[in-house]
C-alpha cells in the first residue's frame, strides 16, 4: 500500500521574474507536518518521510511524492484546465455576434443611433476591446514561436476577466502557472527518489505532474533541485509573447526508517486477544 505525499510549490511569479531568482519568492508546503516536516511556508522545506521495514529489512510501505507548482497570482488550480482557452474562444464568438448586431442596427431604419460614423467607430472600438489580446508562447530552444498549448490564448487577470492593452501598457495579468521541468540532485543521484513526469486525467493538476517513489531504506537528509519554468510576458514582433524563463529551487527530504511491530503484542505475531465468551 502506498502513501501519497504532496508537495506544493507556490511561486510569486512576478517577484521571481523581477529578481531573477526563486529564492525568497517561493513558498513550499507539504502534508507531512505531523511527521516532522520543517519550513512550511518558506523556500527551505525539509519534508519528513517516515519509512518502515519488516524485521527482515525489506521495505514495508511505498511512499510516493507528488509535486504541484502554482503561482501566487495565478488563477486557482481548481479551475478547469480549459478555462482560459474556452474564454478566449468565447470572446471571439461574442465579438462576431456584436459586430453582426451592430451591422443590423446600422441597416435598420427605426433608429438613428448609429447614423453618425463616429458612433459606429466607437462601437467597433468597444467590441474590439472586449475580445482581449492574444498571446504566443515562445519555444524555449529557438527563436520561433510555436503552438505550445497556450498560444492564441488571451491574457486574463486573476479574476478571469480578459484584458486588452496596447504594447505600451502591460496590464495587470494573471501570470501563467509555473511548470516543473525536471527534478535532480543528490536525492536522485543517490537513488533515494525516482522522479518522473506523469500524465494525469485529473484536471486539477493540469494534466501533468511530477511524482517520485522513495527508497526509504537509507535514512538521512537529502537535497534535490526542481527546475521550474516561469513565463514572462514580452511584446515582441507586434504580439504579446510568453517567454519561458528557467530557474532552480532546492528542497530537502529527511528520511527516517523504523521497524514494524505487531499492534496487538508490540512484538511478533500471536493469538488475537479475544475475551472468552
Amino acid at each position, binding site marked *: 500500500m502506498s502513501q501519497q505525499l504532496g508537495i506544493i510549490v507556490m511561486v510569486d511569479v512576478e*517577484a521571481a521574474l523581477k529578481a531573477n531568482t526563486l529564492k525568497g519568492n517561493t513558498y513550499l508546503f507539504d502534508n507531512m507536518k505531523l511527521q516532522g516536516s520543517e519550513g512550511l511556508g518558506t523556500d527551505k522545506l525539509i519534508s519528513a518521510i517516515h519509512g518502515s521495514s519488516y524485521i527482515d529489512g525489506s521495505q514495508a510501505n511505498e511512499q510516493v511524492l507528488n509535486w504541484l507548482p502554482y503561482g501566487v497570482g495565478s488563477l486557482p488550480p481548481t479551475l478547469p484546465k480549459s478555462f482560459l482557452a474556452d474564454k478566449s474562444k468565447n470572446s471571439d464568438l461574442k465579438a462576431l455576434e456584436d459586430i453582426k448586431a451592430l451591422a443590423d442596427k446600422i441597416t435598420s431604419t427605426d433608429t438613428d443611433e448609429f447614423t453618425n460614423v463616429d458612433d459606429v467607430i466607437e462601437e467597433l472600438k468597444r467590441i474590439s476591446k472586449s475580445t482581449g489580446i492574444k498571446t504566443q508562447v515562445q519555444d524555449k530552444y529557438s527563436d520561433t514561436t510555436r503552438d505550445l498549448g497556450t498560444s492564441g490564448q488571451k491574457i486574463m487577470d486573476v479574476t478571469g476577466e480578459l484584458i486588452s492593452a496596447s504594447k505600451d501598457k502591460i496590464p495587470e495579468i494573471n501570470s501563467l502557472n509555473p511548470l516543473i521541468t525536471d527534478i535532480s540532485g543528490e536525492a536522485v543521484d543517490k537513488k533515494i527518489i525516482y522522479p518522473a513526469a506523469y500524465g494525469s486525467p485529473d484536471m486539477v493538476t493540469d494534466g501533468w505532474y511530477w511524482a517520485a517513489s522513495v527508497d526509504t531504506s537509507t535514512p538521512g537528509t537529502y537535497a534535490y533541485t526542481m527546475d521550474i519554468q516561469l513565463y514572462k*510576458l514580452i511584446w515582441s514582433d507586434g504580439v504579446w509573447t510568453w517567454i519561458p524563463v528557467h530557474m532552480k529551487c532546492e528542497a530537502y527530504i529527511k528520511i527516517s526508517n523504523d521497524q514494524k511491530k505487531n499492534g496487538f503484542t508490540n512484538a511478533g505475531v500471536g493469538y488475537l486477544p479475544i475475551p472468552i465468551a
Partner: protein
Amino acid sequence: MATKTSATPKSEPQVIPTPTKTITIASVVDVVGILATDSLAGQVYFMDTNKAEGSTGQGTENLRTVVSAGYRLVWTVIFLECEAYAAIDEIIIDPEYCEPEKKVYEGTDVSYWMGTVKKDITSPVPYTVKFKVGTRDESIPTASPLYLIGKGS
C-alpha cells in the same frame, strides 16, 4: 509586471477602468488539519503578490498586505490535499476600508473574493477570513487577524 510598466503612458485609452493595481492574496489550507482540530491555527498560510511594496508575514497565518486606496484585492484558496475542498465563506473587515464580495469564475462554480481598498490606510486594519472546509456546514474563522497596512506605515 516587471517589464515596461514604467513606459510613458500614451494617449491609448485604458481599458480596465478603476483599479490602480491588483494584489492577489492566496491562501493554502490544510483541510484535514482544520477538520481534525476545529481550528485554523497552524492549518492555513497566506501570501500576497505585493512583497515589492513591503508586505510581510508571507507564508504565515499573519500576512500584512501593503495597500493604497484604489487597489483591488483578490483572495484565492488552494488546498494542501488535492482531493479536498475549501472555500472562503466570509471576509470580516471594517467596511469603511474595504467591502470584499464573493465572485465566481464565469461558467464555473469556483469562487474567489474581491474588494477594492476605499481609502488610504494610516493604522493597520485587521481582518478575519472564514473558511468552509470539507462538507461541513459551519465555517471556521482564522485564529489570529490578518492586516491591511498603508504604504510606509
